């Protein structure tokens, strides 16, 4: 799929279909007993509600004409008790439906989040992060009402509808049919606007996703925006997106609003029809039509349209929710490309022999990134990878952690094919320091501890000392307990690199991977750091990508990579002697001194 940006609507893989409903049902299933109970109680409550008019009729027709005050008091007490029962049932309903709704949302949100954790880098690279976030938080939230009250009310209303229709039919079939004639009329209308509604709500969900993405980027990128004095342009774009959101909202919601007047008018027409035709039949003396029948019928007509009205409301919110649901399910269905084999076993403790055998790899079909890479590393070796930007250096090390699957070839660690072991057992034994050092919001202590949650404070401090971060951390206002922001904005990039270095070390990795990990660290600190590392990494294999050749020179083996192939391989001295590309690279750093 092509990359997406804030002002491009996302495409939809699968439209909403019956299987989505089935999946939704799966979320409801664990609560079906609770749900059944609430529905029974609600039906009881509405039955009790229907009883009230009868009791009132008794008061008017029997007790008052008889002057029976005692009777009135008694029946009032009965009514009061019924009111109490209804209130208690309502309370139970709120309690159960909130619990059901919130729990279901909780589960859906967990599912989408857990699935997101398994999705590859490329999924995150392809779209603005705000668009992923909106699915987990906002979209899921918008299902809450549908899943709690919506379903319970709908089923309850369906039941009362069935009851009422049964009553009506039992009184008079012909009149009932007249009343029911309104339904197909309504259906036709619903059917006509349905397609428009779907399109409108899908459009809205896209627009809200775009807006969200832009807000997220605007906040994250504020420093760049301000330094480039781009505020006005941003405000213009924001208002464009916000305006699109506004107009698609109005379109979608207007269609929804049309349903209510439609039902009201149709119900009035059918009621009128029943009156007119009923009276006409009465005058004709048609069998089965009597004054009593007509009076009773007119009572039920009103009751018949009430649940229809709420059902239509449910239908509206269902249509709304569907456009969010299909997005949520789309994310949950996103295929996981890198996953454990069925018979995957845990990687035994790594000693550190790494081998690439004829490894080829491409991110997209037809655009090869690595071609037939082969090399072998002994435990404890330090491998430096050099070469021009875009040569495939980062890709090589990403493959060691199995962030991607190979097109062909095998990577083994200690003669174990890394695709045969569980990903978790593999990655926990590696310490990867990425180009982009990400700092989570929280204390510095927490950030370093991310490498190993069980580590005690002393261990954390020790790691910080090894990477020479201890001194500057101690200099901060609260030392290790200083709160840092997401991406560590109050730290310099070099400091962030040191912290993520400490984090990688704390993980006690058997294989250490440093991807331009020290590019923003000053040379003095780097040297001290390397001394500390040397001790620490004595028996560990490490891979280093760096541009400062002083960092690379002491490696056991240097790989010169270009255009996805290893062009040169050997120690610093060997490669210098070879006078090839590495030699050229090495020379270039002295060029300016000449």
């Amino acid at each position, binding site marked *: 799929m*092509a990359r997406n940006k804030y002002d491009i609507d996302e495409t939809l893989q699968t439209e909403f279909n019956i299987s989505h409903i089935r999946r939704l049902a799966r979320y409801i299933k664990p609560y079906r007993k609770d749900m059944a109970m609430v529905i029974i109680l609600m039906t009881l409550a509405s039955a009790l509600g229907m009883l009230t008019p009868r009791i009132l009729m008794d008061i008017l027709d029997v*007790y008052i004409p008889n002057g029976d005050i005692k009777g009135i008091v008694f029946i009032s007490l009965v009514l009061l008790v019924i009111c109490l029962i209804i209130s208690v049932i309502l309370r139970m309903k709120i309690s159960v439906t909130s619990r059901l709704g919130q729990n279901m949302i909780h589960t859906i949100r*967990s599912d989408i989040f857990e699935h997101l954790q398994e999705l590859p880098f490329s999924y995150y690279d392809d779209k603005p992060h705000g668009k992923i976030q909106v699915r987990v938080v906002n979209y899921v939230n918008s299902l809450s009402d549908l899943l709690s009250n919506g379903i319970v009310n709908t089923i309850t209303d369906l039941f009362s509808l069935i009851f009422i229709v049964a009553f009506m039919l039992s009184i008079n079939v012909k009149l009932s049919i007249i009343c029911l004639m309104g339904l197909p009329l309504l259906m036709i209308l619903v059917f006509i606007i349905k397609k428009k509604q779907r399109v409108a709500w899908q459009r809205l969900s896209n627009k809200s996703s775009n807006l969200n993405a832009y807000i997220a980027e605007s906040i*994250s990128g504020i420093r760049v925006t301000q330094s480039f004095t*781009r505020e006005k342009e941003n405000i213009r774009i924001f208002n464009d997106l916000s305006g699109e959101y*506004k107009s698609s909202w109005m379109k979608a919601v207007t269609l929804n609003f049309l349903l209510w007047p439609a039902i009201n008018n149709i119900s009035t027409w059918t009621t009128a029809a029943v009156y007119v035709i009923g009276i006409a039949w009465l005058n004709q003396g048609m069998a089965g039509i009597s004054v009593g029948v007509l009076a009773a019928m007119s009572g039920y007509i009103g009751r018949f349209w009430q649940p229809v009205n709420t059902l239509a409301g449910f239908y509206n919110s269902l249509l709304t929710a569907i456009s969010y649901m299909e997005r949520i399910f789309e994310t949950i269905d996103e295929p996981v490309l890198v996953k454990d084999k069925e018979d995957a076993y845990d990687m035994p403790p790594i000693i550190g022999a790494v081998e690439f055998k004829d490894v080829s790899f491409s991110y997209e079909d037809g655009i090869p990134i690595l071609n037939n890479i082969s090399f072998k590393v002994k435990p404890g070796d330090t491998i430096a990878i050099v070469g021009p930007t875009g040569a495939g250096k980062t890709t090589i090390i990403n493959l060691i*952690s199995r962030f991607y699957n190979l097109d062909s070839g095998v990577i083994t660690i200690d003669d174990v094919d890394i695709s045969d072991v569980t990903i978790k057992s593999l990655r926990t034994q590696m310490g990867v320091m*990425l180009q982009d050092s990400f700092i989570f919001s929280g204390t510095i202590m927490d950030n370093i501890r991310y490498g190993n949650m069980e580590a005690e404070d002393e261990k954390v401090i020790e790691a910080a000392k090894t990477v020479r971060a201890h001194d500057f951390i101690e*200099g901060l206002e609260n030392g290790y307990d200083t709160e840092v922001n997401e991406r560590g904005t109050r730290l310099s*990039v070099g400091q962030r690199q040191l912290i993520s270095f400490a984090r990688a070390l704390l993980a006690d990795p058997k294989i250490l991977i440093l991807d331009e990990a020290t590019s923003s660290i000053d040379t003095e600190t780097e040297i001290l750091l390397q001394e500390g590392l040397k001790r620490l990494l004595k028996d560990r294999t490490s891979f280093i990508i760096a541009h400062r050749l002083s960092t690379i020179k002491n490696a056991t083996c240097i790989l010169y990579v270009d255009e996805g192939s290893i062009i040169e391989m050997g120690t610093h001295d060997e490669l210098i002697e070879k006078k090839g590309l590495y030699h050229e690279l090495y020379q270039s750093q002295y060029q300016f001194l000449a």
Partner: protein
Amino acid sequence: MTAMQWVFSFLKKYRKRLIFAMFLATITAVTAIINPHISGTVVDDVIMNGNHKILPKLVLIMVLSTLIRTTIRFWFVMIFETTSQKMLFTMRDYVYRKFMRQDFNFYNTNRTGDLMSRQTGDMEAIRHFVAYVIYSVYENVLLFVVALVMIFIVEYRLALCMIAVMPLTIYVTYKQLISVKPAFHNIRQHFSSLNTFVQENVSGNRVVKAFAKEDYEIAKFNRENDGFRDAELNASRIWMKYVPVFEFLANALTVILYLVGGIMVVTGSMSLGKLVQVSGYLWMLNLPLRQAGWLANDYQRFVTSAEKVYSTISIEPTITDPEDAIVRERFKGDIEFSKVSYNIGEERILKDISFKVHAGQTIGIIGSTGSGKTTLMNLLCRFYDVSSGEITLDGINVKNIELYSLRDNIGIAMQDVFLFSDTIEGNIAFGRPDCSMEEVIAAAKVANAHDFILQMPEGYDTIIGERGVGLSGGQKQRISLARALLKNPSIIVLDDTTSAVDMETETLIQEELTKTIGKHTVFVIAHRISSIKDADQILVVEDGKIVESGNHDSLLARKGYYHRVFHHQYGDFDQYTILQKEMGV
């Protein structure tokens, strides 16, 4: 100004429209009585008493009144909806503008996810209030009052009995409003927190995977997820105490009516007809009571969100344009720092920094990690203000220059490269969105980015992921460099811009940059000697102070920090030349 006043200030413009809509709502509320009344008449008069002649007239009124009523209702609901959207649009714009003006300190202390919630979830609660709650409350109150008045006219004693439940209703409403407020506050808090967590998890997905911390993240997420659910449930536990009470009060009205009314009829102080008539108005009392609990909820939800948004936008940026700010299209680029210090709380970041730069010079800055190099530049751009001392540009204190003019004259390639999820072209042209394609390409060529951009699937139209993921560190830096160069500012700041670029490319970039020497004042912050060697002036910053300054040769001769760094990086230079000689190069 309170949060409420702030929200309502956005509605002022629409006051007339809203009053008109309220007027329409009044019509529908008052005419709500027509159809039930007609139904009653049909049953009593037409069916029971056989008065068939009036039926056509009644039916016609019924159909027409429904048509008119629903049309009017649709009309005013749309007015509220449109108004709410217009207001939301203006409010979003207002909040966004405020965000754009906020200083770095604001962003250091507020989490991205929290700020996003202000623009999304909180706005939604405000929208719902304007679009729905306002007229619903009005309609319900109106319905209730109309019914009471009708009953009062028919039989004032019954009306008094009904009013007897009013104090109780008001009390319960009040109680609910009070007790549900902290619960909603709690929900908003958890929502923000959940939002922030997800946002960080998505941004940090590479770290999560690299450390195989998916399980940990999931566990942490579940805590957030639980927290949010529990906050919601907690709130529902509060309103499930009150909503049934309203339901009970509504139903109790019926009981009161029949009990009191029945007794009155029996004792002869009221006619049966009146009782029947009053019971016809009963639903108009019941409906509002049933709604009261839910509306109280909606109201409080709105108040909480409005307060959240308001408190966020009430924070004033500390860095603002001075009065009579100096506006200048282009500055020459003479810069002077005199006795500049900068503290964060107790921490002294910069101490007594003084140096002078002439327009067109190149200044190299080197020093250990966290020594304050970037801060120097942040102060120059007024991202922060100096704690003491002053910085002048062309002899003018930067604090007296309009922020826009100042920053527009400085092009920064920041250390922490941030790219937007946009095309490469869009990213390079970020500072000058309307510039021509040729200019973009020219800037990319200087930054040595042109070639690799052309190799990308769609060249300059390739969309790069947020924060430039999908590009290597060096590629990102080069795009960021091109972005800064395209601005063609009088001052260029290159903060560690080539650290992830290989040596050969760096040399090429430097060759290109040398061509423009003298046109801009250039600051180069770097760790590699090669990046700053040719600078007119090199500052060595250590621990917030300038410890050495001079040019390459004079600094080497000083045998201090600079000399040490040089040796670390090129210590084997002598050895290397020997090697070359040996090999006969």
